[in-house]
């Protein structure tokens, strides 16, 4: 399978990329790591006339410390995210989730920003970004703007990034010392998550002081399980308290019914996986 022909542009800076996008018109796509886009192009589900490749823009790669947040460049690969010491120390949930994405070859090429902009509701990295309150920095011809994760994901495969804009970096508030876990359910190694749960918990003296929980594939966008979070705060970090809080996991969700699972089965999975994810994050034996 061979993609339709396209013009290829490989800018070496964000400004050049933004310019290239503005000049290319409507039928343009941004190429990140290409691990979602290339299959789409090969199957000719999309046939853009121009591809703007971000692969040569060094400033988009890497993780830096920015006071109360860490900043992950959008072209940082999954492999790099899993090895990064800042991510491990301050956003462990992102590191743990990234380890479960696809397979080693795809993690070598696929990028953090690319996964977020692709916005597949079954994509694993959306939920941790929402759970940790990430902020997305987007560049366009009128300058840069910052969009909170809660407003970034608009619909299936749709984000706040306009066709002539580029996601350049993601700011994640530090969650130093928080326990975390990502629990997903799928049938075989490479399958997309039928449901996934990202959980981060800050414990204090045997109690849960703060909790952040978000769900993968329980609607067209990732969803914060605020009912679970509220029910956890102030509770002892015990199996019983967690099990009881997890019963709120499907509240406010709108899961789809498809060949993998019915909506009510997804709701059941959300409750079960939330229990597991939070227990693991809080260090409570199950």
């Amino acid at each position, binding site marked *: *399978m061979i993609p339709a022909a396209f013009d290829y542009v*490989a800018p070496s800076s964000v400004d050049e990329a933004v310019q290239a996008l503005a000049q290319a018109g409507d039928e343009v796509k941004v190429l990140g790591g290409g691990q979602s886009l290339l299959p789409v192009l090969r199957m000719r589900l999309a046939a853009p006339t121009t591809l703007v490749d971000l692969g040569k823009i060094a400033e988009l790669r890497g993780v830096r410390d920015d006071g109360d947040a860490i900043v992950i460049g959008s072209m940082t690969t999954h492999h790099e995210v899993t090895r990064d010491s800042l991510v491990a120390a301050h956003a462990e949930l992102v590191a743990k989730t990234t380890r479960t994405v*696809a*397979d*080693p070859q795809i993690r070598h090429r696929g990028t953090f920003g690319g996964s977020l902009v692709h916005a597949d509701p079954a994509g694993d990295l959306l939920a941790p970004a929402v759970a940790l309150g990430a902020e997305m920095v987007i560049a366009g011809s009128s300058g840069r703007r910052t969009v909170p994760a809660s407003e970034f994901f608009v619909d299936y495969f749709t984000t706040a990034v306009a066709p002539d804009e580029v996601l350049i970096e993601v700011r994640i508030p530090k969650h130093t010392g928080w326990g975390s876990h990502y629990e997903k359910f799928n049938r075989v190694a490479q399958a997309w998550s039928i449901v996934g749960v990202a959980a981060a918990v800050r414990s204090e003296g045997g109690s849960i002081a703060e909790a952040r929980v978000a769900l993968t594939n329980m609607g067209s966008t990732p969803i914060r399980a605020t009912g679970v979070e509220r029910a956890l705060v102030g509770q002892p970090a015990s199996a019983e308290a967690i099990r009881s809080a997890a019963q709120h996991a499907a509240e406010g969700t709108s899961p789809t019914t498809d060949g993998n699972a019915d909506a009510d089965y997804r709701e059941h999975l959300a409750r079960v996986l939330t229990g597991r994810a939070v227990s693991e994050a809080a260090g409570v034996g199950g």
Partner: protein
Amino acid sequence: MTRITVTVDGVKYTDEVEPRTLLVHYLREQVGKTGTVVGCDTSNCGACTVHLDGQSVKSCSVFAVQADGSEVTTIEGLARDGRLHPVQQAFHDNHALQCGFCTPGMIMQAIDLLGDNPNPDDEQVRHGLEGNLCRCTGYQNIVKAVRDAAGKMSPGAGPAAEQVSSQARSGVSGGGQ
């Protein structure tokens, strides 16, 4: 057409390619590296795995233009002076193939895995190879072969093995004669 320069198995090539040319098609049809095969064409099976600047990638999911300025190692670049790479030898010794179609990708990914984790247990081998499918379901012997190779490539495994191992390791990221 776009001009690219890529080093493949130690030899530098400069070629004109269409931007839509997949790396695997470039390797097979322009460079002649038919040892790298196209399996599923949907990025699932891993048969087309090569090393791009020392990291395993599925060459059906990379455009040739993205490899401009990079080094590629294919299955054809592993043997040295008629001697198989230790992972190739271990696949041979352990009968880790039936039809053999997945083998080039399995071996390239196994070498990447051993670079990260020189002494993996069965579980770690299976996880490390999760992006590679064997339709003959020959996984048992593939896992055995990777662990056998790990033992033979480890420091102190014997002078001869060590010699092969250091050559092989430099070959992974570099290639060349």
